[in-house]
């Protein structure tokens, strides 16, 4: 599968509704790599045609949403949905382009002024936001590290080389947590994407993580609303869930009554007990929920390397030393989580 050229994939993802933008781009990438498209020129022509025929214009998207909300087009306007809005936009665009073409000097000055002012505004806001507004995502962030396992004695090692493993097992997490003094807290998680059903339309596919006890304690964050599950709830899989601030905003309009609402992922029902702060972007920036792994999955994950893991070291630990005290047969190694 080839990525689309010229950042087209990212552009399409941004322009198309999120419900299916990713599906469209993935299928375009798959077809773009199809050798039957007779070489680079054939593939480029096919792609250009696809993009030209894609109804990704914002007005189209807007018209669709307006219609979904029951908003009618103005009286006397006929044609396809979105046609009236698109017609007005394209007419205005044509007038603007003609004016610019007639006065190229003025057009150049206007464009350069716009570019310079937008750039300057962006730069100033970025500095302001980065230095003053953005809160530290987690206190003592330099103590947070990702954990992975190494096993010098593994069968896969040759000539005494150390073999590294990205995934860790539940047993490894438990072993390291209890036997390595440098570790203040340690938690595992694995990503999962499932159909999010809450009685609202449209249904969506939401990405999130199943987590082990100690997850929120390790990250040392405070919820934006409600609370985080207790370790007891995380161990017993009491059916509680924390949602992201993004999902809370986009899906529920930041409704403060969201707590106690039930949702389901697949066939499992959860009760929303809290909203995570926007700074929580682990495991992914797109993560929208965090739920207990549950006893059954935890047992399964005991010996299977399903987890990724994050650790908070004690202040005395020298994180850069890489490998702390061994906890045979697995040795634990760190990489900074920043």
């Amino acid at each position, binding site marked *: 599968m080839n990525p689309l050229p010229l950042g087209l994939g990212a552009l399409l993802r941004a322009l198309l*509704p999120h419900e299916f933008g990713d599906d469209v781009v993935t299928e375009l990438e798959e077809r773009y790599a199809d050798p039957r498209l007779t070489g680079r020129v054939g593939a480029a022509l096919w792609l250009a045609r696809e993009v030209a025929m894609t109804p990704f214009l914002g007005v189209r998207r807007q018209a669709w949403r307006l219609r979904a909300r029951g908003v009618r087009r103005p009286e006397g306007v006929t044609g396809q949905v979105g046609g009236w809005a698109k017609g007005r936009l394209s007419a205005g665009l044509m007038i603007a382009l003609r004016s610019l073409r007639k006065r190229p000097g003025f057009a150049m000055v206007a464009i350069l002024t716009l570019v310079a002012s937008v750039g300057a505004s962006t730069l100033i806001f970025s500095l302001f936001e980065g230095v003053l507004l953005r809160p530290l995502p987690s206190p003592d962030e330099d103590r947070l590290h990702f954990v992975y396992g190494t096993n010098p004695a593994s069968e896969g090692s040759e000539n005494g080389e150390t073999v590294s493993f990205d995934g860790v097992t539940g047993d490894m997490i438990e072993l390291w947590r209890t036997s390595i003094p440098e570790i203040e807290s340690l938690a595992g998680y694995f990503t999962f994407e499932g159909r999010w059903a809450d009685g609202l339309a449209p249904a969506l596919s939401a990405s999130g993580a199943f987590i082990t006890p100690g997850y929120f304690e390790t990250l040392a964050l405070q919820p934006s609303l409600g609370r985080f599950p207790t370790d007891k709830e995380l161990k017993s899989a009491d059916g509680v869930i924390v949602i992201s601030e993004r999902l809370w905003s986009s899906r529920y309009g930041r409704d403060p009554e969201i707590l106690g609402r039930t949702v389901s992922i697949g066939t499992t029902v959860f009760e929303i007990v809290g909203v995570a702060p926007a700074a929580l972007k682990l495991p992914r920036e797109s993560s929208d929920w965090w739920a207990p792994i549950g006893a059954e999955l935890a047992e399964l994950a005991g010996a299977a390397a399903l987890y990724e893991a994050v650790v908070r070291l004690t202040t005395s630990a020298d994180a850069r030393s890489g490998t702390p005290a061994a906890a045979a047969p697995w040795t634990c190694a760190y990489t900074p989580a920043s």
Partner: protein
Amino acid sequence: MPDHAHLTDLEQLLLLAVLRCEDEAYGANLQADIEHEADRHVSLGSIHMTLARLEERGLASSRKSAPQASRGGKARRIYRVTEEGRATLEWNRHVMNRMWDGVPAEGRP
């Protein structure tokens, strides 16, 4: 059937293509089927947008397939027609048939 059960020609083509493709009803397959059988090119964006709208109306549903090696481990979105979708499709065919029934014989193609 109420008024809102009317389907556009693209919606009908897509629902029929989904029925025809059965378990392989994903965007690129539907595109190929419509191109081959109806001699009409519909972009992948239009296909997914229209099917999303049909999903909103409860006439279609979708699920993610198992991850596909050919697409870098990503899953495909597989569509299916709901019972309501099939009934709506049948109703639209019935309407067209009824309209054709009223056309004098010489007006028929």
